[in-house]
């Protein structure tokens, strides 16, 4: 039977991480399912387990002039209820899972799980989210896009813990997240899309486009976005075929039990088209 560590506070938690090789569990809504065995049998963890969900230090949300800081063990529901969480993030969370899951699941858990279909990741990439990562002797800050390296691949050392998700405060004319799944709730996305833009004097000053579940991790290309900045909305609408051809090679989905690559690719391109066509 694997050992379960139940630290009382963050210091003890970091000490355990420093000394033991453990798998970290926050809400557990992914981990219990990924490792489950037959009913009534113990969960098939291969490593000892460290539970962080009872650590009050990781359950806060606060802001300063530039950023919103979300504790790693704060539930998705609490983020949705917060006055200071970004609107785009709240709207994304509303499409994730169900109330029962949202009451325990966490944003840091969705990040640590690093699924190509992780819904929050799409909006977090769009907003240039960062992470605060701590070990017993060190605190570092890293961009989410640099933290996730591939399908379930993250750059977290064995003694490290995600302690905060840090999101810049941004102003958009419009920003939205769109999920394509078989059911409104509790569905893992076939694919997802997030788009946002800002406009001044009829010219695009900021435009961001991200796709989920069409590559090993979220697709967002800042160079392509830069090429759109300075254009008028009419100019962008006029070059819509060119825009979709830019994104075409980046959208390389797979066939799996949830969908297939032909469908995913076509719908992803259509969602991009819809975003550009509806710029106002």
């Amino acid at each position, binding site marked *: *039977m*694997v050992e*379960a560590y*139940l630290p009382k506070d963050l210091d003890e938690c970091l000490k355990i991480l420093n000394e033991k090789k453990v798998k970290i*569990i926050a*809400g*557990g*809504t992914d981990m*219990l*399912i990924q490792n*489950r065995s037959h*009913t*009534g049998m*113990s*969960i098939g*963890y291969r490593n000892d*387990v460290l*539970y962080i*969900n*009872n650590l009050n230090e990781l359950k806060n949300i606060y802001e300063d002039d530039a950023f919103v800081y979300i504790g790693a063990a704060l539930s998705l*529901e609490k983020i949705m209820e917060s006055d200071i969480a970004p609107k785009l993030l709240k709207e994304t969370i*509303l499409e994730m*899972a*169900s*109330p*029962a*899951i949202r*009451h*325990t699941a966490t944003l840091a858990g969705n990040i640590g799980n690093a699924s190509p279909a992780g819904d929050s990741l799409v909006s977090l990439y769009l907003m240039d989210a960062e992470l605060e990562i701590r070990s017993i002797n060190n605190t570092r800050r890293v961009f989410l896009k640099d933290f996730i390296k591939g399908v379930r691949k993250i750059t977290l050392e064995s003694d490290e813990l995600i302690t905060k998700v840090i999101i810049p405060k941004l102003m958009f004319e419009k920003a939205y997240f769109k999920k394509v799944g078989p059911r*409104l*709730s*509790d569905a893992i996305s076939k694919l997802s899309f997030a788009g946002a833009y800002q406009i001044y004097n009829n010219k695009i000053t900021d435009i961001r486009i991200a796709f989920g579940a069409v590559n090993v991790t979220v697709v967002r290309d800042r160079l392509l976005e830069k090429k759109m900045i300075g254009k008028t909305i009419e100019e962008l609408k006029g070059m819509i075929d060119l825009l979709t051809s830019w994104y075409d090679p980046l959208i390389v989905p797979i066939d799996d039990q949830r969908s297939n690559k032909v469908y995913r690719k076509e719908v992803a391109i259509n969602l991009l088209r819809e975003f550009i066509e509806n710029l106002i």
Partner: protein
Amino acid sequence: MAKIKFKLNDKFVELDTDPNRRLLDVLRDDFNLTGPKEGCGEGECGACAVLMDQKIINSCCTPLANVIDKEIITIEGFSKTKKFEVIKDAYAKTGGVQCGFCTPGMIIATESLLNKNPHPTDFEIKIGLSGNLCRCTGYNLIIEAVKEAAKAGDGLW
């Protein structure tokens, strides 16, 4: 193994057990509370739903470790309350129960929703029940039941 303490259906309980166990297994095997059921076992159907600190959770994907010092109420505990009587009568009146397998979870979802939002709109009811599946597909009647409960129990939540 560890000592796990929490409040279960209005009583403080203490167990010496593996904190990795699923709350669902502990409720059914150690406490003989069989109202929460294993449907899908992966958080999609809501048949295992219970209240943790008055909010719905899926006991099939909650490790016992996360229940320490929390308050858990199962359908057995909830059925001793006045709010349950109102919800039960509403489900009976509208025909919101068919085979009954999903009903404990639906009632937990109803309570969790009304606790947070005593006068939900149709859309809010659908979101509130969205993690619970009814294989008899009697959803419209269940939504009616929640509306009826909110009306009949006005002031209770």
